[in-house]
């Protein structure tokens, strides 16, 4: 493999990983607040179609991104009402959200299949032409840069800000947080809405940049992968980022080695990303202390103020 192929492959991996980064960051905040939302796939796909429909209709990709995020947040609002106000079980509500989201996206998307969109512009003129580092550093669309900024921002928020500490406190012990006067429900609402918006953004990236078109079910399980990445990352933003790139990497590398003609059934190659995730999960969770330190203690537990 020469360097040109390596560079090109890295670019492909970055595009494949970016939607996972967004969705995983969102879910990470949600889980840190003690809420488990398994509806990522549903929010992503609704974000994807709403972003695409808006971008096609209005001609503005930027507007598409905004609407995609709003759509994701809108769907997560349903989840918030059900789990926070009506005390519904997180796992069941999240799964229902996914079923609903996939159906809703198909209903909205009817009529948008077969429409095309120009992908988000890539690269910083001039700089991206520099050999080797040019394409690697400057050859991306704006959302790839934003995914890096967002990861840094989420990491900073969680560890360095007061609001981040409150969020973690709510996730670790909601009764204690409540008794010292924090509004658990309000904080969780905001976390859930943020998670929805980020899942919507991940979906928007898929339908606007990754493959700018609409096809039913086009998120193809990436929302589930984002969920796995959060645990994989032991609820740390930069590790989630790294995890998304690793997962993207394994996915792309199996396509690349097929091009070189090797004799392994394609099904086994397609299994690699999932098996790799399991192996890394095992390695990470062997260390009980590590998981205990980072996992939100109240994850998925219901909270009611009168308790």
């Amino acid at each position, binding site marked *: 493999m020469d360097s040109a192929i390596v560079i090109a492959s890295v670019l492909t991996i970055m595009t494949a990983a970016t939607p996972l980064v967004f969705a995983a960051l969102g879910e990470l905040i949600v889980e840190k607040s003690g809420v488990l939302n398994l509806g990522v796939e549903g929010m992503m796909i609704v974000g994807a179609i709403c972003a695409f429909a808006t971008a096609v209709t209005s001609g503005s990709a930027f507007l598409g991104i905004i609407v995609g995020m709003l759509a994701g947040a809108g769907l997560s609002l349903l989840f918030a009402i059900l789990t926070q106000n009506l005390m519904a079980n997180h796992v069941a509500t999240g799964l229902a959200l996914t079923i609903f989201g996939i159906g809703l996206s198909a209903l909205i998307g009817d009529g948008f299949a077969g429409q095309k969109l120009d*992908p988000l512009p890539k690269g910083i003129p001039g700089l991206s032409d520099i050999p080797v580092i040019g394409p690697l550093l400057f050859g991306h669309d704006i959302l790839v840069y934003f995914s890096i900024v967002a990861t840094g921002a989420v990491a900073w928020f969680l560890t360095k800000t007061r609001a981040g500490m409150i969020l973690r406190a709510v996730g670790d012990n909601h009764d204690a947080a409540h008794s010292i006067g924090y509004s658990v429900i309000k904080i969780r609402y905001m976390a859930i809405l943020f998670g929805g918006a980020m899942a919507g953004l991940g979906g928007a990236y898929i339908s606007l940049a990754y493959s700018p078109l609409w096809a*039913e079910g086009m998120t193809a399980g990436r929302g589930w992968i984002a969920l796995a990445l959060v645990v994989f990352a032991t609820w740390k933003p930069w590790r989630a980022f790294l995890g998304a790139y690793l997962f993207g990497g394994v996915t792309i590398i199996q396509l690349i080695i097929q091009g070189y003609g090797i004799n392994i059934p394609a099904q086994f190659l397609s299994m690699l990303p999932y098996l790799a995730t399991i192996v890394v999960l095992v390695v990470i969770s062997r260390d009980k202390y590590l998981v205990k330190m980072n996992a939100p203690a109240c994850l998925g537990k219901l909270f009611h103020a009168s308790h």
Partner: protein
Amino acid sequence: MFGSTWKKTIGALAVATGMAAAGQAAAEDTKVGFVYVGPISDHGWSYMHNVGREAIEKELGLTTTYVESVNEGPDAERVITKLAKDGHNLIFTTSFGFMNQTLKVAKRFPNVKFEHATGFRRSDNVSTYSARFYEGRYVVGHIVGKMTKTNTIGYIASFPIPEVIRGINATILGARKVNPDVQIKVVWVNTWVDPGKEGDAAKALIDQGADVIMQHTDSPSPLQVAQNRGVWAVGQASDMKTFAPKSQLTAIIDNWAPYYVARAKAAMDGSWKSEDTWGGFKSGMVQLADYNEAIPADVVKLAEEVRVGITDGSIHPFAGPIKNQAGEVIVPEGEVADDKTLLGMNFYVEGVQGELPQ
């Protein structure tokens, strides 16, 4: 925004039934049902079957019904039964995976006529039909063999079934006729539709030197990638030119409409009987989209000669000598592969890189 397509469909249906009432009498008792494996919005396989359904409504004024995204399994049997019970007297089941279910239901409804796409089991009231897409691939092979500068064709494949393998082989056989050095790199993605993954496969192939991207998956995503990377591509199932106006050399189009209209007519006038149809260029079941203007005139001429040759029977894509990858002769000189060999094809011919995943 919501449901515009099917509203239009139903609108058309209402007009069409009105017409039918004024015209034919038989039309009133002929109801045609369709079972699709994917959503009609897939812009590929199911979409083209739905175009055929719409042709029946438009040309014959018949009432038609469709059920989309039907799982190949127990659900299919229930849906087909429901259509038969509901008074549909001609039912098209448009995926290989509906074969056993179609035959089972057909046994219980001897007066209903069934048409099963791409299968190989028939009965008194079950016909089978399929298209010789490999004829299109063979012509396309000639074009891409001429157009490639790197002598590398990238091929995104779904699942290693005979249909897909036949397409890969026909392409390389056509390409090698005009360019003995050309080879095909195949990437299996294990899905019919996942635009992200299909696009990634296209990128991986282009990075490895492919300057033509072909696909046997349904989404136009690989064409978009080809367009952005400035390499050639070939559309699949329907004309995908809007997605890659510069890159699409041509597209292999599944044109089911003439067959569907003919069979519905036969059902109306009572001349329908069970048969096996495997149509190609000649019957119009396989078509090529307009050639890209960037293709040199002599290449277009060559491609047309091959297309005409296949249509009149003077050229057969799988004419010997055909060797497998090991160099063994599968079809000797002077013979052509029979339909049985074609139907069950499970080997790569010379020029395909890598081994067939089995």
